[in-house]
């Protein structure tokens, strides 16, 4: 079923012309997983790799080690290594974890990368000032790119 979905969505895109990204508040979690692509199109794994390593974007390596990203310096050890996550988790599960890991792991330290509410004293990025409008840390497209890259991490 899952395998058919992109085809169906592709067809929908052609006819509807503009697919609106799923808004952060509308993401549908099922047991922590998110079945539906946030953008309705496949992510770009190469860009996802950039998002993982860039301090100004996902900065995922701040907490996770990724052997495949040995060219990016300084990987942290706060969260589990990401080697093989493409085997251990489904795409839907990874999408859910990246979007809001607390739906899968209650109380986890991992930030929610596609969420805009429920924060205490949210700031305007790293300025230390209050946020006027909270935008998600990653865009829907960036989340999909990260998920696409994570799916390439097979043992």
């Amino acid at each position: 079923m899952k395998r058919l979905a992109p085809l169906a969505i592709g067809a929908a895109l052609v006819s509807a012309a503009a697919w609106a990204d799923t808004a952060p508040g509308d993401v549908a979690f099922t047991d922590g997983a998110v079945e539906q692509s946030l953008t309705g199109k496949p992510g770009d794994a190469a860009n996802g790799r950039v998002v993982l390593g860039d301090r100004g974007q996902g900065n995922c390596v701040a907490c996770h080690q990724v052997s495949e990203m040995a060219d990016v310096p300084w990987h942290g050890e706060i969260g589990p290594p990401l080697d093989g996550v493409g085997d251990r988790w489904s795409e839907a599960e990874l999408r859910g974890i990246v979007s809001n890991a607390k739906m899968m792991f209650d109380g986890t330290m991992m930030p929610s990368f596609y969420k805009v509410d429920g924060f205490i004293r949210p700031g305007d990025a790293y300025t230390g000032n209050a946020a006027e409008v909270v935008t998600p840390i990653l865009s829907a497209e960036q989340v999909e790119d990260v998920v696409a890259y994570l799916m390439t991490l097979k043992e």
Partner: protein
Amino acid sequence: MLKKAIVLAGAAALTGLASTAVLAGPDDDELVIDGETFVTELPGFEGSPLDPIYSGWRFRDDATQALEMDDFENPAFVFVEQAAESWETVEGTEGKSCASCHGAVEESMKGVRASMPSYNEAAGELWSLENYVNFCRTERMGADALKWDGDELNAMTALIALQSRGMPMAPVIDGPAAEWFERGKEIYYTRYGQLELSCANCHEDHTGDMIRADHLSQGQINGFPTYRFKNTKLNSAHGRFKGCIRDTRAETFAPGSPEFRALELYVAWRGQGLSIESPSVRN
């Protein structure tokens, strides 16, 4: 031949490897300054959230550690010397210097840092060392208050804190300070900002782990004010709190705010018994 700790012979093969430096926990080095050994590790006390308790010095690398072990090489001391001049300098409308009332800083300020922050009966609130300095300036000297976490105030608190160096951290948390302590504890465990991170997430749950290239300490404040390589100047504990909270993508509290004074008391308590290292050196 070169002589420093930084040139210890080692393996040459390391140079190609880029990522993941793994060091689970503090090192075993001993902090000795001027022949005096400092307590950088001790067992948790009753009710302590940490066991053992470690000074942040133990989480720094040898090159950084070395700068704190020699008062000449420690850049904080140029600022301490500047503050020592300020201590003697008459300022304000009353024709007074710090020394006019307090005499020699070495005598009058000995031990003061150990119990900071402390509840001030007259003011009816918890005061950090900075509050006491500025109170003297505005109420006794007729001078302007110094800016919180600014260079001049940090230099002065460093000079005062130095007179307690080597003494154990011993904040008072009961009596009227109790409600401040509770407020500080609440702040410590609150997950602020868009990253939803509390102090405890990093400094209690992941002490010793690497977060990107940074080796997480317990976040103790026994070394503050501290000279940081990052900004090459003295930093107050409140300035450091602000930086950490900003990095959670949160709206920070202000240095000197009641929230940060409460947090300072709570964090001071978490490190009670550690030797005061002020002014320390950190990355």
